[in-house]
């Protein structure tokens, strides 16, 4: 049968504009928030795609399944296997989903167009698998449900599954749906692959159950058992993969650095920022030497956006649009811990009071003018702590720095001279 004949009566064709508009509504507000890497862009695009297409494709599937039932297609002893009939019936839906997802990537590409990299294939594949699974579930459900019930049920039910878990605890539930919270990764993090495996398992279980119900109906005991057992088994494995993950599904990135040697120091940035590598190196190497003198440490042999694994490695970041001052400031504040220590959740922790003064002092010692530092950390008065510390001898400043840096990392050490 000519393809256009097949498509003419496909509900997916008529739902395609709705899917496209819904995706645009979801995605358009997120475009300016995409981080400077393709991983985040991929997750933003597929997340919007899953949210827009999952419920709509499931509902369209319910309509198509009911249409086939009313037409007596399944009673006509077809030569083709049930899987073939199911997949061909879902093909227009799949084609619509691919088209809309391509539209999503067309929207995100300008935001990350100049950045090295490409869409993350596993993320795209899992997104399509999730959408496909719910489409098949809709077609299978449509075989048994009147469309007046099946269409809204699949639309609302799928939407609830994709959207509601974000608000639930335990936190691992949100990692099973395929929606990925609408965003993923800053440039120094990656999506935890266990999340993708878990989502793929759940989606595959939905697809298997859909096929069994479609081909055998609900009557055989084996099907009834499979409808329970297959998703249960998939959930058990999936939960074991994502249990322990917190609210977010990203983890620190370990690879993908590009490096250059500048005045004997290796400077490394993430490959997405390689265009700024030379520029960053020329700024951070002299700044690091000034800092080394100020804090009484050897100058670093390596300055990296990745993890600083030893005392000779220092950490910094080159954010997109960062200027000279921003780069040096990032180097200076790279000494500060990114978060309070774990003990701060359960005990009194005074170290936070040292955060701004230590950061201010480091930035000034790295060579930034006071006015620039004040614009970032707050005005410095004549009587405030940093001004007083800067007036002291070098040895005193080093002791002050080391004591307060330790206070930032421990609940047992109180900061000194930070008020």
């Amino acid at each position: 049968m000519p393809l256009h004949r097949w498509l003419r009566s496909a509900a997916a064709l008529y739902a395609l504009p709705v899917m496209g508009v819904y995706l645009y509504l979801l995605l358009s507000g997120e475009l300016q928030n995409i981080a400077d890497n393709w991983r985040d862009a991929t997750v933003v695009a597929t997340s919007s795609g899953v949210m827009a297409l999952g419920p709509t494709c499931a509902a369209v599937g319910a309509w198509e399944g009911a249409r086939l039932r009313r037409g007596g297609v399944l009673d006509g002893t077809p030569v083709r296997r049930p899987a073939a009939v199911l997949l061909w019936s879902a093909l227009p839906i799949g084609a619509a989903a691919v088209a809309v997802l391509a539209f999503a990537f067309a929207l995100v590409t300008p935001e990350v167009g100049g950045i090295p990299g490409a869409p993350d294939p596993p993320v795209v594949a899992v997104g399509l698998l999730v959408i496909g699974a719910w489409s098949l579930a809709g077609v299978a459900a449509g075989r048994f449900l009147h469309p007046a019930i099946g269409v809204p049920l699949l639309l609302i039910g799928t939407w609830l599954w994709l959207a509601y878990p974000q608000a639930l605890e335990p936190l691992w539930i949100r990692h099973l749906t395929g929606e990925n919270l609408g965003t993923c990764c800053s440039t120094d993090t990656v999506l935890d692959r266990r999340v993708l495996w878990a989502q793929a398992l759940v989606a595959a279980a939905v697809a298997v159950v859909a096929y069994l119900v479609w081909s055998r109906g609900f009557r055989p005991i084996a099907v009834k058992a499979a409808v329970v057992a297959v998703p249960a088994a998939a959930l058990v494995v999936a939960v074991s993969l994502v249990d322990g993950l917190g609210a977010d599904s990203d983890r620190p990135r370990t690879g993908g650095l590009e490096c250059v040697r500048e005045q004997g120091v290796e400077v490394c940035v993430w490959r997405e920022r390689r265009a700024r590598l030379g520029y960053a190196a020329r700024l951070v190497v002299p700044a690091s030497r000034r800092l080394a003198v100020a804090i009484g440490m050897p100058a670093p042999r390596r300055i990296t956006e990745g993890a600083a694994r030893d005392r000779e490695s220092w950490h910094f970041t080159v954010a997109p649009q960062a200027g000279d001052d921003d780069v040096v400031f990032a180097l200076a504040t790279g000494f500060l811990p990114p978060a309070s220590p774990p003990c701060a959740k359960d005990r009194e922790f005074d170290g936070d009071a040292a955060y701004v003064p230590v950061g201010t002092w480091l930035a000034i010692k790295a060579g930034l003018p006071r006015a620039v530092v004040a614009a970032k950390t707050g005005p410095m008065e004549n009587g405030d702590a940093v001004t007083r510390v800067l007036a002291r001898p070098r040895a005193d400043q080093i002791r002050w720095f080391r004591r307060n840096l330790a206070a930032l990392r421990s609940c047992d050490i109180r900061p000194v001279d930070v008020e």
Partner: protein
Amino acid sequence: MDLWTRVHQVARTALTMGCTVVLVALAGESAVPAPSLVRGALIGTPIALALPLAAAAVLIRAATAGPAVLEDVAVRPARLYGAVLVAAACGGVLAAGVVLTWGGLQPLGFAAARNLLGLTGLALIGNRAHGRAAATVLPTAYLFLTLMVRHGAGPMPPWLWPLADSSDVAAAVTAAVAFACGLVLHLRARHRPGGD
């Protein structure tokens, strides 16, 4: 009459209405994030306001079930019976919603019942326009459209009635008008060739 109640799934409808009331009560003010075009952000949407869509689907299915060709040439007023079923089901849920809200058990109880009324009305209008297979397309699309164009908390314009709280009089009136229109169209409908 007992055959009519079986053909039109009265028991299942009553059970569904009961379960809907219970779920609305249990849902409290739990919300699901849904995108808003106007706000450009996800806004929490109370589940209790979306649940009535499923109940409306079951109700419209029950009201339009049965052999249409026989009922359309019946001596007995089969359409009137269907309308009475719809009115009774919605009335029962409305009463329960009032109790939930005034009793302080679920502030959105009346709003959920109002939504059942309005969405059922839209389903009846959809049934008249597109036949019983596509009856729920209209209320489903309407509910999702309202989700996407709302601002968030605060006074709602009347046409965003599915998202208004229980004290919103304009929303209640709008839903009631939709319900009344749907009932009138249902009672005046003629036979639709092709059945389902």
